[in-house]
């Protein structure tokens, strides 16, 4: 049985102007469990708080009801007051008689009546309150960054800079990601490699950062502050710590016909390879799909030329298990496949390329050493057509592309067009667009320079068809402004392919119990207010895995994610929200219904032995809530048909008591 004190606040005239506070206090004094009831001008003032503290001592109160302003205003204040006077802060309930009563009702009679009812509901709830103590869990002071592109690199560097160890897991043999494949960056036109590679070196040299390249996360267990992660280190058949990166093997390997993914298959590499000159780690990797030694057991050339003795054909995948306090997802993006866009003849002509392929064609380290040459015959193209929004902003009914805008294409196409005109003024450049979207610092100026200074032909309209005819590409398009059909004989067509999240993201999201939208972009905890946190505590988002973004945006999000991680790792212990779900194991059916609706993956199942009411012993599958992970939404409590799942602080019985009091 509770001993409840009721404290009605006048809030000057804010409440007392419309509500007869004395009547409220008197009426609530008669409620079950109430042993003291009073009213005062400002309960939140020092003097008001002292009234509460004194009453707690004098009347041995076990529960407090404050009838005052919104709990969003002063719940914390009164909880602290209660705690200071020695009772559990969660024994305090607020009846909101200001914002939800005196301020919205003008009539004193109905205002007073309602205030009493709200007070009764609060009393009824406190009668069933139980002291709650937030749980504490230690924090493992190490972060994991999944993905080694610019997002992952920046996040790792920032976290390491604050003094915390960070591991980067990258599935490719080197970090660097998409940015390493870019030539120049908009809108400043500085060289991507020039700004990226120093950061890659920083990562390599930072003693707080470990790089697990050519590796994948295979399992994530645990919760915020305490993740247990298994990382698969794929066999690269080259001892990472022994290889000097001299590159001798990559020149001697007899298998020369391996499509070079770094150049998007526009040239070849060997079966043993280093993706590019500035790779980090600069270590060779054997491609098991092409290596003759691994496939047939006959060759061994690389082993012979390696003076360091780094080659190990018997290497196996290894699994590393590590604990982390925080995880940052930076799995990035890929251009979508052009398979479904045959109207642009991508599969029919080598001279129809994607924008990323164009980047490689114009890059000094690319297949043409930076000379803009047609992939088909190595000739210089004189007419280039850029097609925007290939697979972006598609109709929701269309199964070909994405509904969203890929955001970066307008700007990089302007960059490509401008650079082409700059280097090869004899080239005619057409850009077909739906809209040109340039909302960014110096973006619109950049686009206008392309049109005004460089004479790029921007045509509003879509390309309908590209047909290879001899050495030419016949481009059929519409000019919506002129209202006419255009036929352009092009030498090269560049498709601004939509970008989509990396395919590895979906299984990763499942492991992390982080939610994704229908396009497989990770969902943020709040679209406006918590944009770099996933809804799963301790999991943060960096870069294009959360949505299409350019480099500056990616880097700022990477920094923001790092700041959040640092904020978390700074703590020695995490204090949870005590209003969490808990399962009555004796009633739980183990049906997994609650687990399916939990947005945080806070519910797990264990097989446990129980002494049943019929005095038999039975092993039963029951739900357990990880209090450190549960955020207290209560979704599981309604999903659970047996009522085994309840929410502390908002228990079914408490809410029903409030309902009863209101409807009395």
């Amino acid at each position: 049985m509770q001993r409840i004190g009721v404290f009605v606040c006048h809030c000057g005239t804010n409440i007392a102007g419309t509500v007869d506070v004395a009547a409220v206090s008197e009426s609530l004094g008669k409620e079950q469990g109430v042993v003291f009831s009073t009213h005062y001008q400002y309960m939140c003032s020092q003097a008001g708080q002292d009234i509460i503290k004194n009453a707690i001592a004098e009347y041995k109160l076990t529960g407090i009801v404050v009838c005052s302003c919104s709990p969003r205003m002063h719940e914390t204040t009164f909880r602290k007051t209660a705690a200071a006077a020695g009772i559990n802060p969660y024994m305090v309930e607020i009846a909101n008689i200001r914002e939800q009563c005196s301020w919205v009702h003008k009539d004193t009679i109905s205002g007073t009546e309602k205030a009493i009812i709200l007070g009764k509901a609060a009393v009824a709830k406190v009668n069933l309150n139980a002291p709650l103590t937030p749980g504490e869990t230690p924090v493992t002071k190490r972060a994991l960054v999944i993905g080694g592109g610019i997002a992952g690199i920046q996040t790792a560097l920032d976290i390491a800079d604050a003094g915390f160890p960070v591991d980067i897991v990258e599935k490719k043999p080197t970090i660097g990601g998409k940015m390493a494949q870019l030539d120049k960056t908009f809108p400043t036109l500085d060289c991507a490699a020039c700004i990226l590679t120093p950061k890659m070196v920083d990562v390599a040299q930072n003693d707080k950062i470990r790089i697990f390249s050519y590796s994948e996360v295979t399992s994530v267990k645990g919760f915020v502050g305490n993740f247990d992660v298994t990382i698969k280190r794929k066999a690269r058949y080259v001892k990472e710590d022994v290889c000097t990166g001299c590159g001798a093997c990559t020149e001697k390997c007899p298998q020369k016909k391996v499509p070079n993914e770094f150049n998007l298959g526009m040239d070849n590499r060997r079966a043993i390879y280093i993706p590019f000159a500035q790779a980090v780690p600069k270590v060779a990797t054997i491609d098991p799909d092409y290596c003759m030694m691994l496939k047939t057991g006959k060759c061994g050339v690389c082993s012979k030329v390696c003076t360091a003795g780094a080659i190990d054909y018997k290497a196996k995948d290894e699994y590393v298990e590590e604990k982390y306090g925080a995880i940052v997802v930076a799995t990035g993006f890929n251009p979508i496949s052009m398979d479904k866009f045959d109207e642009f003849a991508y599969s029919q002509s080598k001279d129809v390329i994607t924008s990323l392929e164009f980047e490689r064609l114009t890059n000094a380290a690319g297949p043409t050493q930076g000379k803009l040459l047609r992939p088909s015959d190595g000739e210089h193209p004189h007419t280039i057509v850029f097609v925007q929004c290939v697979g972006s902003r598609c109709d929701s009914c269309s199964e070909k592309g994405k509904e969203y805008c890929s955001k970066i294409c307008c700007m990089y196409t302007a960059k490509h067009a401008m650079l082409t005109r700059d280097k090869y003024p004899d080239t005619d450049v057409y850009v077909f667009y739906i809209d040109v979207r340039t909302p960014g610092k110096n973006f619109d100026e950049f686009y206008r320079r392309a049109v005004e200074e460089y004479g790029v032909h921007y045509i509003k309209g879509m390309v309908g068809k590209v047909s290879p005819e001899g050495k030419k590409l016949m481009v059929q398009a519409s000019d919506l402004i002129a209202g006419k059909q255009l036929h352009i004989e092009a030498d090269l067509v560049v498709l601004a392919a939509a970008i989509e999240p990396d395919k590895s993201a979906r299984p990763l999201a499942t492991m992390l119990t982080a939610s994704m939208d229908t396009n497989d972009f990770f969902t943020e905890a709040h679209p406006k207010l918590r944009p770099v946190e996933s809804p799963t505590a301790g999991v943060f988002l960096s870069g294009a895995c959360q949505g299409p973004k350019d480099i500056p945006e990616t880097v700022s999000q990477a920094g923001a994610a790092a700041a959040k991680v640092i904020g978390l790792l700074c703590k020695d212990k995490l204090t949870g929200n005590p209003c969490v779900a808990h399962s009555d194991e004796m009633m739980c059916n183990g049906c997994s219904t609650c687990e399916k609706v939990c947005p945080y993956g806070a519910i797990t199942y264990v097989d446990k032995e129980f002494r049943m009411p019929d005095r038999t012993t039975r092993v039963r599958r029951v739900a357990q809530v990880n209090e450190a992970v549960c955020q207290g939404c209560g979704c599981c409590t309604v999903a659970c048909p047996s009522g085994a799942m309840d929410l502390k602080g908002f228990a079914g019985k408490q809410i029903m008591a409030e309902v009863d009091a209101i409807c009395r």
Partner: protein
Amino acid sequence: MRKISLDRINDLFAAIAAEFRLYLPVDTNGGARYEEWAEGKILSDELNTVRSAKDFFFPQTENLMDFKTEGKKIEIVDTRSETEDFVIFGVKACDVRSFDVLDRVFLAEPQDSFYKNRREHSLILSMACAKPHETCFCTTFGIDPSAPMGDIVCYKTEDALYMDAKTEKGAALLKKIESITVEDNGEAAEKQKKVIRERLEKLPLHNLTADRFGGDKTAEFFKAPEWKELSASCLGCGTCTFVCPTCQCYDIKDFNTGHGIKRFRCWDSCMYSEFTKMSAGQPRLTQLERFRQRFMHKLVYFPANNDGMFACVGCGRCLSKCPIQMNIVKVMKTLGKGEEKNV
């Protein structure tokens, strides 16, 4: 014996209803049930009602008393009121016998005033069973469906209803309706009795006997291994209990109305896992024990405490209503056979 032709039966009901509340079986989507007669209600032709007639004296829920709270004061309110006289028409022999069984429980000291009040204000017009069903076995318990007990016994033929007063109360009622009935020599009723007795011979359970059961059989049956198989597929629902005319277990529950407490008595079933649950748990832990309890009570414990009277009247309701077709007949036959084998 008085007679009224069936085409005037409505007049009979109207005449009775002018004096008393009159209840009679009428048809619903869910079978026959007792309803208060009003103009337009038609007497059901079903052999029996789905729920038994025990509801009249021992209703499913009953408000025993109220506690009014105001502030911190509690006031106890006696909700009892004197029942008006009422007539139940068309009660079959088995259900009439069930009242005797219930009387043994509720009218034993200390008497149940709620039950007694209603019992004293009731008039029972019983009806002979013209066409018993295959599930009937009332004769097993010495009940004669052709000659039920009650204040007035009725026989319904193709064209008329015959009424024979068996008690003073019954005679008084017949007197009141004298003007719309005619005297009868009882021949038709006798003829029907004969037909009924012939029909009883044909019933599949006609030879079922309860001889092997009785108050002294606890030791013999309590540990019988057959209980395990008999109870194996029991769902633990309360259908058998709630349609049974003699089951009389109840629980007392308080309902918080927000203004006070209403104390209810409500039917309970010994088949329920929560039956008579106390702080230490429920006394019968398994469905086997709960199942055994129900049948041991009817066939052994009740007769032990009530001069050999069985707490089953052979109405057959549980035979047709059990979701898994397990019932007292199967129990009696199975346990009986076991005994034979042992001999």
